């Protein structure tokens, strides 16, 4: 393996040495992990921080007055402040801890849904993950609102020229992904939020796929809400964030009832705590939040510009080499992409290829990627998706391509 990326000073061997799970064999071959859009691996510092919490500090937060509880509370709130810094929110109280993006989007849909009425419109891009469609459909069904898709072009980009056809005076919510999990498209979310604001609608951005690859600044984007998940940005599973502008959060009703989210509770009635506690009923994922904070520290300690250059090199190399495989078509030709490449093969179903890649040590995702409306839009049932992260190498991309050539020999015969 080359230790230096062509992208300036990125020492890949050193970066990879921080990720224990990358160093293993699968079916007797070195693991080539290209399923980072599903989840990224975790650096040693995140793993250690999670273990250390249980070994040394384990206590519930915001409750006890004893030393361990104080330490846990301090670490948990410090993690919240790291999230604030990571997305440049104005105040830490705007960052609600959730269990992940699905939870964040359900929270947003449920609480915003309380203010919707019959005839209102919710506009979602045609490339949304099911987790940003189904919660809105549930809410819309309850109040009689309608869910309308914002069109996507054949290249897999938002068709913002046609946004005016769907975002109108009835529109109360506009939501879209920052980066498509299926195609890797980077959307112009600033423009989407501007269009939403002009229509008097609230904007909600799903940044699940963006956080590991792009810098996120909620104030520059101009979004009202933004959802993050820890496990796709080198952090633990089971922890996520919903950012909401404080002025909006103050007006929203609670999502789930329970401990820690109340102001006063009597059988005559309950008054609720201010954000973020109002939206964090029950004991939160304390270790997860602390681990996410450490993942943010990890990202902050890296040269992200060099990472971005390296990832772009991987994208260009993968796209070029894949296109030279007979009968392979890359799906999603957006101008701005992260290093995720989806493709289909005219000689095989993705399901045929996945086991051959697996036995070559290569981990990719196959299927509809929980974006069936996008698949329908593109006239596809399933794709194979290779999603790269900063720790992937050019040689790993070559291993994927070699395995595909082998699959073709086995399947096209």
């Amino acid at each position, binding site marked *: 393996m080359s230790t230096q990326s062509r992208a300036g000073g990125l020492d890949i061997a050193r970066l990879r040495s921080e990720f224990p799970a990358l160093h293993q064999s699968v*079916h007797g071959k070195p693991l080539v992990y290209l399923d980072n859009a599903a989840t990224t691996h975790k650096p040693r510092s995140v793993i250690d921080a999670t273990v250390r919490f249980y070994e040394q500090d384990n206590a519930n937060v915001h409750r006890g007055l004893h030393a361990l509880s104080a330490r846990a509370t301090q670490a948990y709130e410090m993690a919240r402040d790291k999230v604030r810094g990571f997305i440049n929110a104005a105040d830490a109280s705007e960052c609600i801890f959730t269990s992940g993006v699905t939870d964040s989007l359900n929270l947003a849909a449920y609480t915003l849904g309380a203010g919707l009425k019959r005839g209102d419109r919710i506009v979602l891009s045609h490339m949304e993950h099911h987790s940003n469609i189904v919660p809105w459909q549930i809410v819309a069904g309850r109040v009689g609102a309608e869910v309308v898709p914002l069109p996507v072009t054949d290249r897999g980009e938002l068709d913002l020229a046609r946004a005016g056809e769907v975002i109108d005076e009835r529109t109360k919510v506009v939501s879209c992904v920052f980066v498509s999990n299926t195609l890797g498209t980077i959307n112009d979310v600033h423009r989407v939020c501007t269009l939403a604001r002009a229509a008097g609608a609230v904007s909600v951005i799903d940044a699940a796929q963006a956080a590991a690859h792009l810098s996120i600044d909620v104030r520059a984007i101009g979004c009202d809400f933004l959802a993050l998940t820890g496990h796709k940005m080198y952090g633990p599973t089971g922890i996520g964030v919903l950012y909401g502008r404080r002025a909006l959060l103050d007006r929203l009703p609670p999502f789930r009832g329970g401990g820690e989210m109340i102001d006063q509770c009597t059988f005559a009635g309950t008054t609720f705590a201010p954000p973020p506690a109002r939206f964090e009923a029950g004991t939160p994922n304390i270790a997860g939040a602390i681990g996410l904070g450490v993942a943010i520290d990890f990202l902050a300690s890296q040269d992200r510009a060099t990472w971005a250059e390296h990832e772009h090199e991987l994208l260009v190399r993968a796209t070029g080499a894949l296109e030279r495989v007979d009968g392979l078509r890359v799906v999603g030709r957006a101008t701005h992409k992260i290093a995720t490449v989806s493709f289909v093969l005219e000689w*095989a*179903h*993705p*399901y*045929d290829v996945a*086991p*051959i890649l697996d*036995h070559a040590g290569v981990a990719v995702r*196959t*299927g*509809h990627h929980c974006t069936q409306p996008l698949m329908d839009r593109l006239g596809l*049932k*399933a794709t194979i998706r290779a999603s790269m992260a900063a720790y992937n190498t050019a040689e790993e991309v070559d291993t994927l391509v070699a395995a595909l050539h082998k699959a073709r020999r*086995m*399947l096209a015969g």
Partner: protein
Amino acid sequence: MPAHAIPSIEEIIETFELLGDWDERFSYVLDLGRKLPEFPESERTEARRVHGCQSNVWLDLGVERHGGPRVRLRAVSDAHIVNGLIAILISAYDGKTPEQVLAFDIRGLLSTLDLESHLSGTRRNGLQAMVERIRAEASAAQSHEAGG
């Protein structure tokens, strides 16, 4: 035109034992899939579709009654490897009595053939759903015989 006959389940097991590495066995299952009898597009109706998360299967299932009940099936998938697995199911189940179908340890067989992962991922390829339908058909045929 009849395809090359699908080998008997005993022959399939024997061949598997002779094959060396994973690549060879995978290629053999692909070859078995190429022996499936034709299943024209026009017959791939929604009613025959077995839903899987990743690949689709169309299954035509019935019971032949003259001379004692026999389970009959033909099927096809849009994935080559699933066609190979279907060939194994046809070899195991087609033309067998309901008792033979119900007694057959398909999980054990696929485990012997190192193909069990295709059955355990129930959401993935519709294979599990297909096995359940075949067994339900055999079970119904059995109670039909007992009742009538």
